[in-house]
Structure formats: C-alpha cells, structure tokens
C-alpha cells in the first residue's frame, strides 16, 4: 500500500513540467545582480538621491506577485482557490501602493483610498463566494436532494433491470422447461396410441398447445432481455442485430467492461430500434454501429447511408428517447451531410 502511495505522484508527473521554484531562484539571482550593479553605479556616480530604490521596487513587484499566485493556486479548487487568487491580487496591489507611498517620501496618506475601495470590493466578493451558500440553505438542500434522487432512481432502475433478467431466467428454468417436459411426455404418449387415432389426435393437439405456450413465453422472455445480450454482452448483441438486419451492418465496439444491466439493455434497444428504422427507410443501404466509452459515458452511434430525413418525433424514437432520458442520457437524431441518418445516444454509466 505504502509503495503505491509513493509511486503514484512520480508516475503521474509529466516529464517536461516547468520547475517554477528554479525559475524563481534564477529570477532572484538575476535581480540581485542588477541591484548590485545599479547600487555600484549609484556609488561611483552621484551618490546623492538613492534612485536605485526604484529599480529594487520594479524588480521586487514581479517576484512578489509570483509568490502570491503560487500560494493561491495551491489552495483546493473551487471557491477557496478563487478567493485566494483574488485575495493575492488585492494584497499585491495594496503592497505596491504602500511601497510607492513609502519610497516617494510619505506625506498625505493617499493609498488609503485605493486600498479602501479595492478592500471593499474584495470583501463584497468574499461574502458572495463564501457566505452566500450558507445563507441559502434551501438551494443547497435542493441540490443534495437532486443528486440523491438521481442516484436512487438509477439504483431503482438497475434493480428493476436485474429483476427482469432474473424473471427471464426463472421462466427459462421453470415454466418453459416444464412445458417442454410436458410436450415431450405427450409426444411419447402419442407414439403409444397408434391403435387409437382419435385419442392420438387429441394428444397431438394438446402437444401443439404446449408448443404455442412455449413460443409465447419465448417471445415474452426475448422482450425482457434477448439471450445473447445477457449471455455475451452489448457488442455481441449488436453483432447479432446486425446479422438479423436485411442490409449489411458493420459493428465497431470498444468497451472495456460491461455496463450495468439497465444501461446495457437501454443501449441494446437504441441499436435495435435504429437498425429497424434504417432497414425500413434506408432502402437497403449499409449501416454502421459504433459503441464506445468516453468520460464515464457509453456512446452509441448508429449511422445509415440511406436517404435521411428521419422523423425524430415518431413513436419508436420517442419511446427510445424516454428510455434513455430516464437514465439521464441523451438521444439525438440528425441527417448526415451527404445523405443518411445518424442516431447518437449517450448514457452515463458507473462502470
């Protein structure tokens, strides 16, 4: 464990990163050299009014600003960092005013005005940034509620999808298997009834009924989750859909792991419906399916080379959009330049 912690920063650090500490050191060294030279020049020339102090002032300003910014950007991102950067700029301006006042020989304390006005502005900014969220607990409460609801809805939908797959499996092992066994027993009975054709006919009809029930259960199970999707995952299921399409379909899939069942099923139906549409309106033109992941999102693209002009408000696509939006995803349908239709869907997925 400890070795991992030690190794990580080394591994993550890009090799060609600028070393700001070294830059600063170099800058200080050069500045010191320049100061030495000017003081020497001042000594060997007039030695009157100590003008090199303005050179020192000019050289000190960038160094101070740099130190202040470096301090500020080490703060955690978000409000603290923004506040620190604004504070650093304010501090530098105040310091510069004070330095000019001191170097120019004092007198009327004019820096009061710029410092007071920028100070007021900074104070107001700090209040807005730091205090406001605390002053509006309702907004914060709502924010937390929304994120909680998003999380629980996703969880509920996923539980539902997993439950449906379990039901599908139970149908397979339970009712479907029993009906198959029944149909088999009836078949054996039929074989022994050769001498009684009327009874054999009744048994045959009973067997056919069992067959119809099996077929209905099969359609039902397929609607829940096609077996190839449950067995082999999204890429294989998309390939299978491609093979079933009347037009040539190519599938490119780059998925490192299987998404949650609910996301997988939604993605499957996006591909299925899009290919059905492409088959219906594409006039047999080829179609391409692209499955990839980017930034924690599953991207599904189905492109056909048909005439385009898909009706995005049709029932199929609308149903699909609702399914995708329920998972906080997006679905767009667009015409491709040069012909064809592109269905683009994105689904967030906690891998």
């Amino acid at each position, binding site marked *: 464990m400890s070795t991992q912690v030690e190794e990580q920063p080394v591994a993550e650090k890009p090799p060609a990163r600028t070393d700001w500490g070294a830059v600063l050191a170099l800058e200080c060294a050069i500045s010191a050299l320049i100061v030495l030279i000017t003081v020497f020049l001042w000594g060997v020339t007039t030695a009157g009014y100590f003008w090199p102090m303005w050179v020192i002032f000019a050289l000190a300003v960038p160094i101070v600003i740099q130190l202040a910014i470096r301090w500020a950007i080490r703060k955690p991102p978000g409000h603290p960092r923004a506040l620190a950067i604004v504070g650093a700029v304010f501090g530098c301006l105040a310091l510069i005013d004070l330095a000019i006042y001191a170097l120019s020989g004092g007198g009327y304390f004019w820096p009061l005005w710029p410092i007071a006005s920028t100070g007021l502005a900074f104070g107001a900014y700090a209040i807005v940034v730091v205090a406001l969220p605390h002053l509006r607990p309702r907004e914060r409460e709502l924010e937390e509620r929304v994120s909680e609801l998003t999380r629980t809805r996703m969880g509920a939908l996923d539980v539902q999808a997993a439950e449906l797959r379990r039901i599908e*499996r139970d149908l*397979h*092992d339970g009712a*479907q*298997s*029993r*009906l*198959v*066994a029944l*149909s*088999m*027993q*009836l*078949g*054996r009975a*039929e*074989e022994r009834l050769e001498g009684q054709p009327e009874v054999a006919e009744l048994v045959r009809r009973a*067997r056919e009924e*069992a*067959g119809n029930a*099996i*077929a209905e259960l*099969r359609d039902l*199970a*397929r609607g829940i989750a096609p*077996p*190839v999707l*449950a*067995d*082999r995952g999204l890429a*294989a299921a998309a*390939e*299978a859909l491609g*093979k*079933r*399409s*009347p*037009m*040539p379909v190519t599938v490119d899939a780059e998925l490192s792991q299987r998404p949650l069942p609910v996301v997988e099923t939604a993605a499957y139906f996006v591909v299925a419906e899009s290919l059905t549409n492409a088959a219906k309106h594409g006039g*047999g033109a080829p179609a391409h399916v692209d499955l990839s992941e980017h930034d924690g999102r599953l991207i599904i693209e189905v492109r056909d080379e048909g005439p385009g002009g898909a009706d995005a408000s049709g029932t199929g696509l609308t149903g699909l959009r609702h399914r995708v939006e329920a998972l906080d995803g997006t679905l767009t349908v667009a015409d491709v330049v040069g012909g064809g239709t592109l269905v683009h869907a994105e689904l967030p997925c906690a891998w």
Partner: protein
Amino acid sequence: MRVVIVEDQALLREGIVALLREQGVEVVAQAEDAEGLLRIVNGHKPDAAIVDVRLPPTFTDEGLRAAIEARERWPGLGILILSQYVEPVYTAELLASGEGGIGYLLKERVGEVRAFVDAVERVARGGTALDREVVAELMRTRGGRPGDAALDELTPREREVLGLMAEGRTNAAIARALVVTPGAVEKHISSIFGKLDLPSTDDDHRRVLAVLTYLRAAGD
C-alpha cells in the same frame, strides 16, 4: 448409433433418455455440465452428443462452447444443440466448427418424437438438422443482401428447396411442402448442385455440402 446427452435439468434429461431408448437409440452416457460433456465424449466416443446451450455454472452459452471444443478435439463428432431460443450467432458458430453432423433444434421439438429421432440419426450420420425457425431466420438474413456469387445465382425457388434441405427434410417431404412432384424437387436439387459446383460424389454428401455452403454464407 450411440449418443450422449448433456442437460442440467434432470426432468428433461431423463425424459429425453427414456424417449430415445423407447425408439431404439442407444444412450451411452449422460452429464449435466460442460466439463461432463468433454468427459463422457472422451470416455464413450459416441456418434453424436445432444447438448443444451445453457449449462452450469453461468447458465449462458457454455453448452455451445463446450460442444465446439469437443468437436475440435474429436473431429466428426455429431452435435445436436437444444435451445429454447433461435440465436443466429450461435448457429453460425456451430456451423463454422468443422466437419461432422450439425443440428440446432428448439427444445419443444423433442415432443415431435419421430422427427426428433430422425434428427438425432441424421446428425449422428454427419447430416444436418436445423430447426425450421433457424432456417427461417437465416433466410430472412440473406434476404436482400449480396453475398456469395454462386449462391446469388440460385432462383428463389431453389433457395426455398435449399432451406428445406437444411432442415433435414427428404425429397418427398420437400415436394409435399412446396406442393410439387418429387421429380421437380430432384430437378431443383441437381440445379443447385450444379450452380454450387459440388463434386459428384454420393448424393447424401453433396446434400450436406450444399446446405453447409448455404448456411455458412448466411451466418457470416
């Protein structure tokens, strides 16, 4: 003819064994998972294995995978897959798995006792026995898609005949299904053999080759 059966559900497995024994088929061993399949095929060297697609431990497609592996190890082993679904991906993998009899039937076909026993025998002899649903699915797939040049030369009627051959039907059965004379069916079949440029060995073998050419092209 010696067969083995791999099915995890005891009710079905025992039912199939009883049914086949009643019909005079010699069932030499049974197993309930994919490992069991490899073990009993190795031990008994059967003519054919009847295998359920979904087997423990994951209940996905390990029956199919194990059957394909068995076929690689023991070329010529007939494989009859039983499944509750028609899945073209699985059929295509099975068809690509090398020499030997091949069958893919929906489980409920077991109830059509005579047809089921015929299918088992055909697969054990190196023929094909594909469910009519499988063939229908493959025909739909091939629909308007350009494919193998030789296959594209077939007339729609010849394709229909080839589809029925893939199900494993006899010429007489094909003639009945299409409401034509057996003579017409024979003409179609010899035309198919000619177009697919199949060697004139025995008719059974050519039949298998024609069907495989057709099915493999459809599965690609």
